[in-house]
């Protein structure tokens, strides 16, 4: 006899008695909090959205100096364009996120369900990449802006020797690079831990198709 058939016989024999929940045991279960990864993913995406929105808005309200600078920077079409772009991206992100969450359904096949969750994770990933790219762009841009608008800074830069300029460039790139890598690692860690099992199982299903 096949091993599995032996198991099947036992499995369906009712030999194993499970705890039988009554109706009154089940009712409270319906209202308990879920600990599903979709819920966690949802919280992370909301936190993501809130973080980048606050990072953009808070300095404006907290520092009048920054507010002033920002207002003058809007006179520059490049800055204005970038700001408008970032708001469009936020709206687009909210829309895509909403759409991909709606698509996640526990009644789909296992593979489809996994694909929809991974799609949602991708939406968040692209949003993060966009924000990181914006930070990376904004560092040289704000220096350039400062150079044009701030006479003191302008004078300082002009007095720099070529070597000093190289050191300055190198330093800026290094700091920006380290900052971005740290943020990126942080994201990898969060999603890596959260989706490790899902990725493994998805690969297992995917492997069959090759």
């Amino acid at each position, binding site marked *: 006899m096949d091993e599995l058939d032996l198991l099947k016989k036992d499995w369906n024999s009712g030999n194993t008695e499970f705890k039988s929940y009554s109706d009154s045991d089940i009712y409270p279960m319906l209202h308990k909090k879920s600990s599903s990864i979709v819920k966690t993913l949802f919280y992370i995406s909301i936190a993501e959205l809130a973080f980048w929105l606050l990072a953009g808005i808070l300095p404006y309200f907290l520092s009048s100096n920054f507010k002033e600078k920002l207002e003058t920077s809007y006179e520059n079409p490049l800055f204005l364009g970038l700001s408008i772009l970032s708001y469009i991206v936020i709206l687009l992100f909210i829309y895509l996120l909403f759409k991909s969450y709606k698509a996640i359904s526990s009644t789909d096949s*296992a593979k489809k*369900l996994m694909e929809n969750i991974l799609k949602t994770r991708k939406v968040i990933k692209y949003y993060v990449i966009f924000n990181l790219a914006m930070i990376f762009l904004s560092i040289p841009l704000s220096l350039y802006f400062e150079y044009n608008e701030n006479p003191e800074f302008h004078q300082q830069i002009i007095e720099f020797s070529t070597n000093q300029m190289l050191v300055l460039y190198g330093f800026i790139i290094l700091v920006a690079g380290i900052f971005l890598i740290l943020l990126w690692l942080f994201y990898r860690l969060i999603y890596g831990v959260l989706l490790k099992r899902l990725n493994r199982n998805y690969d297992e299903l995917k492997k069959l198709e090759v």
Partner: protein
Amino acid sequence: MNKELEHSFVEQLQKHQNIVHKVCRLYTNNADAHNDLFQEITIQLWRAYPKFRGDSKFSTWMYRVGLNTAITLYRKSKRRINTQEFDTVEFKIKAEEYDDTEEQQLKLLYKAVHQLNDIEKALVFLYLEDKDYREISATLGISEVNARVKMNRVKKKLRTILNP
């Protein structure tokens, strides 16, 4: 959600709860984990229930949501990190002091099944529940041919685990 819907859901789940218990049995190895997964599957079933049209049997629909929860959605909660694992079958055998070869073999079989990965367990589960390859392939989202291939590999793997 209205009370009537809740009532009909609880009634049906209560009747078919063994399906959920069986999923938990394969995917967990201690009582706390079992209850935790049972809880999560119940939540997922309840959430999906308004969309349950009744065009399939309630029990068939439960297999899908139950397995999806166990394989994909469920995130082990912190509540049960310190609990000790036990082998239910082993426990049962010891208690009754069985030394029958079939019982012994079953005990090893259950242990071997627990060593399979999540997807392999799903195949075994559906097989044990007497589902045909059409249903297995639809539940997992793979082709029928691949479901057969995978099932044969699982059987082979079980044999290797049992007779290393």
